[in-house]
């Protein structure tokens, strides 16, 4: 753990920096007119909260204290002021810490895992700032400033744990209803393996967001000549006489794989974001931010600018 701590600290610092830039990024992007109201989410229903929701007629079952006298005084009826049910969300995060995430091709400056950790920490930072509770999947949700540190610690602990590191599928843990989960992985496992896990998470009433982090090389297969490809995990080996001849068909398969994931997610009403490690992390952060806030359905939402669009290839949908 000691040896993972210091690089992790760097990543954390990076994530802090990223998160700190976020508001200005939002302003610069000029695509959301107001900062995302995170944390105290209106549930669009009455319940315990501070924001006025509606007046309604007094019913017998209501407590007398609940009567809003000022409103009632203006008419002959008694009114009850109802507030919107507001509750802090729990956002579960999971990062694929398997060997495949350590891949970095010559086209990219950072490995997938680093990018995933940076994004997760930055996301956590933002969420915590907004008052949400965050946790690594399988951990305890926390709020407050220390939550991000705790998140980093659990990442470090799990990265050091070989048992955990082997698993490139999200674990099935008990998550609270109405919580959200953010899954950072390359999602290169067969959909047949992935789908049951997601299903199991989804049946808990969790809304999920998948962030597929890919190296550009994994998209374009920029190799030529006689090449032996070895899977990062597992013993799969492919020797290509001319790697360049595989390029088109590989790309087709990649797209097909992504579409399969998408189809699954569509069924679960989850979302998928694709991020390439040669793109800036801010892009992914901003996009997943928006996703998490559900702002893409907002009438004020505008489709991403071109620069951001480039980071979200055709697989991007929800």
């Amino acid at each position: 753990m000691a040896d993972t701590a210091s690089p992790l600290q760097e990543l954390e610092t990076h994530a802090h920096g990223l998160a700190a830039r976020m508001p200005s990024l939002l302003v610069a992007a000029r695509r959301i007119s107001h900062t995302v109201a995170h944390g105290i989410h209106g549930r669009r229903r009455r319940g315990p909260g501070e924001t006025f929701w509606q007046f309604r007629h007094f019913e017998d079952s209501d407590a007398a204290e609940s009567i809003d006298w000022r409103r009632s005084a203006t008419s002959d009826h008694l009114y009850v002021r109802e507030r919107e049910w507001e509750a802090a969300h729990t956002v579960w995060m999971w990062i694929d810490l398997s060997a495949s995430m350590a891949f970095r091709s010559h086209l990219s400056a950072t490995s997938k895992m680093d990018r995933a950790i940076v994004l997760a920490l930055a996301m956590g930072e933002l969420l915590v700032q907004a008052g949400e509770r965050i946790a690594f999947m399988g951990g305890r949700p926390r709020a407050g400033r220390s939550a991000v540190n705790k998140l980093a610690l659990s990442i470090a602990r799990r990265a050091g744990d070989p048992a955990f590191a082997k698993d490139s599928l999200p674990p099935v843990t008990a998550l609270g209803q109405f919580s959200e989960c953010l899954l950072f992985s390359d999602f290169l496992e067969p959909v047949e393996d992935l789908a049951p896990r997601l299903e199991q998470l989804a049946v808990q009433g969790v809304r999920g967001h998948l962030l597929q982090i890919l190296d550009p090389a994994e998209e374009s297969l920029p190799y030529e000549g006689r090449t032996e490809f070895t899977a990062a995990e597992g013993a799969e080996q492919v020797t290509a006489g001319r790697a360049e001849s595989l390029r088109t068909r590989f790309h087709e398969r990649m797209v097909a794989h992504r579409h399969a994931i998408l189809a699954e997610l569509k069924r679960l009403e989850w979302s998928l974001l694709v991020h390439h490690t040669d793109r800036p992390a801010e892009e992914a952060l901003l996009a997943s931010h928006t996703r998490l806030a559900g702002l893409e359905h907002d009438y004020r939402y505008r489709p991403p600018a071109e620069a951001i669009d480039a980071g979200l290839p055709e697989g991007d949908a929800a």
Partner: protein
Amino acid sequence: MMSFGLLGFLQPWALGALIVLPAIWWLLRITPPRPKTIVFPPTRLLKGLEDTEQTSAHSPWWLTALRIIMAALLIFALAGPVLHPDRDALPGSGPVLIVADNGWAAASGWRSRQALIDTYISRAERDNRPIILTGTAGSRETSISTMSPQEAREAAASLQPLPFDPDRARLAKKLGDEFKGQEDLAVIWLSDGLDYGGAKEFSAALSALSGARAPLSVALPQSGSGALGLRAVKGEKGKLSAQVIRSGGNVRGGSIQAFTAQGEQLGAAPFSFAEGATAADAAFDLPLEIRNQAARLEISGETSAGAVHLLDARSQWRRVGVISGEARELAQPLLSPLYYVERALSPYTEVEAAKGSNIASSVEELLQRNLSVLILADIGKLVPGSLNLIESWIGRGGTLVRFAGPRLEKNTDRLLPAELRRGGRTLGGSLSWSTPQRLSAFEDTSPFFGLKPPADVTVRRQVLTDPAALRQAEVWARLKDGTPLVSAAKRGDGWIVLFHITANSDWSSLPMSGLFVEMLRRITERSVTTPGDVKAAGGTPAPAASPAAAQSGLLAPREVLDGFGRLVAPSPAVAPIEAEKFKDADPGPARPPGYYGPASSTRALNIIRAASVLKPLPPLSGQNQQISYNVLESVQLKPMLLGGAFLLFLADMIVMLVFSAGGRFLTMVRRGAAAAAPALLVLAIMAQSAGAQQSTSAGDAKALEAALATRLAFVVTGDAEIDRVSRAGLSGLSRVLKARTAIEPAEPAGINIETDELAFYPLLYWPVRENVKTLPDKTLAKIDAYMKQGGMIVFDTRDYQTTLPAGAQGPGATALSRLIGDLDIPPLEPVPENHVLTKAFYLLKNFPGRWDGGALWVEATPASDADKSARSRRTDGVSSLLITSNDFAAAWALDDTNRALFPVVPGGDVQREMAFRVGVNIVMYALTGNYKADQVHVPALLERLGQ
């Protein structure tokens, strides 16, 4: 040593390694090149894609084959292969006798002969047998002795071809004496394939030496590559021709080259032998002066003395002028004074006969043609002009030959060797005691020395020299009674020769004899080829220049040919040749071919004479075995095989680099292509410039088009609208001209004033753009020249009415002054009354175009003749430029249906009609000049004619 056919192996056991080749093949096949390994997370997705490519994962078959070949080459190289191993054994058991023909005919293939000698020496060395090496040609002193291989090699190296025929009979005798009774020699005769007589006997003698058991080995040149001989012949009209002879063989060709004495090549002539032909002719096509410089002919590629023919003064070709005092009698050619002279000279000189009967002009004409000899037949007295001319020509080295005759008898001038006595003498007439005289033998001081006067030549009449004056002259030929028949005297560098008889058969029978031909030939031969450069010609007509030699009659060698046909200094052993025997001298050890005699009149001795014939060796009797000169030398193949293996190794390396670099290699290639892009650009530019050159020829086409028909032309301004109007306007005017006048112009031409040639266009319409730029000086000069040479330019500023007040200087005028301000423009004035323009075709008062009112400016008519500028005089008073502001072209512009394109202002058909008339008048003015102006004189002229 093991050998298979052409191949032998020094280390045959190394071939055993070939067994491992299949193993290498197997190893190479199953071990594909090591791929680069990449940890690639989505490998799962790649699974199954690679199936189609799996085979290529093995090294490709050709790469394997390449490596197998490489290995095979290495193995073969180690086995030490030898091509054409020498495996022949020598017959007999005694010494090895190698007899090599080393006459001139052996020279051209000397290298292969030496190689063969070397081969036999090696074989003798292998068998430990002594060697006797001897050549058939050579001096008598050559000793015949057995030699060790080393000595034999030295002897072989010093054996050289000699520039004469081999003397086989002598050698046969010598060998017979030396090896009497010995019958165990291995005899090898390296023959040159020619029979010089007695070849059969020679081979019989050699066969006898080799004994009954072993055959005589005879090396023969390949059919078609035998020796070639060259001789020069005089072709018709003095052309330098050569004949190549050989003993027979296949079709063969080549070329003969002619060289000067300094070795400069003058020309080449091809020759070709038909199958079996023994002679082939070749002719040089050279002008006389150059032809006479030829000193040496060579068959190119043949390095033998027989393939070189030396030329001397006798083969030079001289130009002889002949003039007769009598008009030529074509009806009776045999009586013509020059008939025999021309017949005698024409085989070896170029005879120039006088064209007309005017002797003075004939002399002048002929002497301009670089004559060597001028023959005057029966011309008594020359006019002083001709006399001086001839005299100075003689002073420069010319040879004047005069024949006597009735006129000369009566009347002489000073151009004679010695003064003549008045009246000739007649021998053997009916009133004479004497009989016709014969010629006495020529004295040795005479250039005719060596010729034999035939007994039947008689002289009936001759002119006589004053005996007192004869001392100044030389007598070259005498009659029996001692009276001179041919006298000569040296004047300056030249000679005057007088035949005391006529040139025809009137006075003697000499002109009909062969002697006459020879005498004239000697005279022309000793003449200077080109009088005026005696030194360059090299041959001064001076037999007295080396009196000793002349007296002794010996011609000393100057330069001789060696066996390879190179001119070298003669060795002391070379003896001089007696002059009178020179003609029949055969080259031999004591007199190799070459130049003999004094520098002034060298004679050439050649191997191939006019009668030489090359005979092939007859079928040889006795036991013999023919061998070829083409002994294939043993070639060690090891370095070649190793080199090949190395090349394959390099190729393999490159292939591996390409394989392993993979994409990077392709990127490199792509980068290379990117680097090549500028080069391609340069190429493209060059191609474009080539296109520009093509457009030059397009310019020529344009010029051609312009020259073939009269057409109006306008200057292309670059403004498409203006140019369109100009073209339409001139086109419309052309139509009007065609309909109304005799002028039928072709379609108008647009002219680029800077690049196009203007000379073709009589009239240039130049609409002036307001924003026109100043012209470059070159263009201005061109326009100036055009105007001064009679061209007319109509400048149209087209700006009338665009200025207020009308007539003020408009923008067009400013532009015009910018355009032609630098030109040499004469004073201008508006068209005055009675100007030719007002009446060139139509009578006009004003000159409207699209606008009506602007003045038409022309060159001011000079007030008086004195004021007339040079220009107006040159151009016949026609103004070279007209300037208007009325926009003519717009008024003339018609569309296809002859409707006007632009309205005229103020308007009306009358104005347009007038505009057309203006155009017609301008064109008429440009084409006919001031012709109409002369009409004013018609009444005066008529009056003067009295009508």
